[in-house]
């Protein structure tokens, strides 16, 4: 009884010290509050995979009324801005100077061949940004189909073939990329607060020797670790709540799953990142190395290998294998499912179990590593 009250008193004292340290350092507050706000703004207004207007340089070598009408169809399209040029070389210069995104080439026999039933137009895109180039190729179908439908009505409507595809996108009917970016945002914010900040703080104590000083006091390793976890856990929750509010009120992303499950999934992931931060800093004991390692082990994989931006299905098999070791992978899948699909038990429980196992494993490892350093 007496023993327990002493334990609690020590944890409380250490936590108060740690919390003061967090609140007094402007950089910790910057990471806990300014960073989530900045990310919300960036993700909300800066990042978008949705499409915009493209500029196309039109080379009409035919100069017939037919070809003029086809160029006109591009001008009418909301997706295209047309610049008329006289040669393909001129178009290429425009593309190289970034004044056009691609070119439309109508050859000089276009009208003649069209009346014989086999005309071609070329759409040339700049492949430097392959994703944008592909979007432009898809756009180009529209004006050509419109022109065909209007001009060649007698030949049959080219835009609807015998088989017509009716597609529906579940979970995101309006195709808004915020829907999958906001759950990812929460994961990124947690990663930075949990792993990056914690690693820096603990490594600094090792570097300065204040930890060794602490260990000659009656404070036990477990108590020390808990007192380190609590303030950063609180900071992480602050970031989480900010993102949650922004998702609801700023971006209007629906939460189709239950809020308690969302909180459970997020806090479990936060514990994993805290564990990584503590473990790395305990092992390397240098602020520079700890920060670089944490960036390498948590932040960059969370950005690139978690399915947050780049779909895991696009990756070669061995990279997909690597992603199974990355906690953010499970967190992104959990949050995207909870936000957009709902409480899908078959997805949620296995992934939550993996994250829980990771959190427990990391905290035990940290505890062992810290004890070893004492002896």
């Amino acid at each position: 009884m007496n023993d327990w009250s002493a334990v609690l008193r020590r944890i409380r004292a250490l936590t108060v010290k740690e919390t003061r340290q967090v609140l007094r350092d402007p950089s910790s507050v910057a990471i806990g509050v300014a960073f989530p706000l900045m990310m919300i703004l960036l993700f909300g207004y800066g990042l978008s995979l949705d499409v915009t207007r493209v500029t196309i340089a039109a080379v009409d070598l035919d100069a017939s009324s037919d070809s003029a009408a086809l160029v006109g169809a591009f001008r009418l399209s909301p997706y295209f801005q047309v610049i008329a040029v006289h040669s393909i070389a001129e178009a290429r210069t425009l593309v190289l100077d970034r004044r056009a995104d691609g070119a439309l080439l109508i050859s000089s026999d276009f009208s003649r061949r069209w009346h014989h039933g086999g005309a071609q137009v070329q759409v040339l895109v700049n492949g430097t940004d392959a994703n944008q180039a592909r979007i432009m190729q898809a756009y180009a179908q529209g004006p050509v189909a419109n022109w065909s439908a209007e001009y060649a009505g007698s030949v049959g409507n080219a835009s609807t073939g015998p088989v017509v595809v009716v597609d529906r996108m579940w979970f995101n009917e309006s195709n808004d990329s915020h829907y999958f970016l906001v759950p990812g945002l929460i994961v990124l914010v947690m990663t930075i607060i949990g792993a990056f900040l914690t690693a820096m703080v603990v490594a600094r104590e090792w570097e300065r020797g204040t930890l060794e000083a602490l260990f000659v006091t009656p404070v036990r390793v477990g108590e020390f670790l808990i007192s380190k976890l609590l303030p950063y856990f609180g900071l992480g929750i602050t970031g989480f709540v900010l993102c949650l509010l922004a998702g609801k009120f700023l971006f209007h992303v629906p939460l189709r799953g239950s809020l308690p499950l969302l909180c459970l999934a997020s806090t479990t992931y936060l514990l994993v990142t805290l564990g990584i931060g503590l473990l790395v800093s305990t092992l390397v004991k240098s602020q520079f190395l700890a920060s670089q390692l944490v960036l390498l082990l948590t932040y960059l994989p969370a950005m690139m290998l978690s399915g947050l931006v780049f779909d895991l299905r696009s990756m070669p098999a061995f990279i997909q294998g690597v992603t199974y070791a990355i906690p953010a992978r499970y967190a992104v899948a959990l949050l995207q499912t909870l936000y957009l699909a709902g409480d899908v038990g078959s997805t949620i429980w296995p992934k939550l179990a993996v994250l829980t196992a990771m959190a427990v494993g990391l905290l035990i490892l940290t505890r062992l590593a810290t004890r070893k350093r004492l002896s």
Partner: protein
Amino acid sequence: MRSSLYRILALIQKEFLAVLKDPRSRTIIFLPPILQSLLFGYAASFDLNSVPYAVLDQDHSAASAALLSRLDGSGVFHRQADLARAGDISALINSSRALLVIQIGQDFERHLVMGEPALVQVVADGRNSNTAGTAMGYFGNVVDEFNADWRSGHGQAGPPVQIVMRSWYNPNLDSRWGMVPSLIGTLTLVGAMMLTAMSVAREREQGTFDQLLVTPFRPFEIMAGKAIPNVAIGLAQSTTILLIAQFWFHIPFSGSFVVLYSGLGLFLMAAVGLGLLVSSIAATMQQAMLYAFLLIMPFALLSGLVTPVKTMPEFLQSALLINPLLYALDITKRVYLENAGFAQLVPDFAPLAAIGAVTLSFAAWFFRKRLA
């Protein structure tokens, strides 16, 4: 003049020693760019190589079988399940086992033969709407081919105008061709800014920076002594990634190394200048690290690496004019793939030179202020 040069050289030597003598910090400088360019070169792609799908074929006709075999023969679509009831669709999509579920109604063949529109319903998992859109696009292509064959096989006229797609500078539209050259700038920015910010902050935290200030070094010399080694390390990192792009990923380099390295030199001066700027605000290593990170984050996200700059709102685009990575990505991609020359790149070189000049002179001024 000559003695100033000697002093700078001595500082450069000291800086290299401080960074490179510790094997762990040597590793942390060169291993991450190598690992990351390999990993991200494979991972950072919007191309979809495999679309798991399920089918609910209620027609069981020759026509529906022909459409499905065309799908299975595409090499991209992989059938996960044949469903019997529409009620099974949601389970497959929810559990992510299928990205698309294709539903062919029981009148499919009859409509086709009678020349009426034969509907095929596609349900896509929109949790990642970009992927879902790409997968639906692939499916649309397969259906287009099927339609063209059906028309010619049944004596109907083909489409009056055929669109021929061609792509400049990246014939197969492989997104890796744009991504890997972009990593040269991105990974180097992270390294250069952090390393610089940390190297000054470490000296300030340990008190050796004040010792440096009482030596005969002039503020300009201290600045140069900090900047030059970090620019050199950044160039070495860039070269490593450039080699990986050419010899591992076999992305053909069509530009000029002189243009590329001039651009990278200017870019690194800007990045190191920003790193020094950060270290002037930061009192500790932790602050230096976190502030550097707070700058790198928006720089990387809003550079065109992940999403195009054009789609960003105006106010962000103008705020981004101070983003060195924006110019660096433009330079590396255009030199690497399009063989751009100095004349085309003036709009990139000029702002980089300006950022470098402003930040480096500020650093020198700041070191003088601390002296006074």
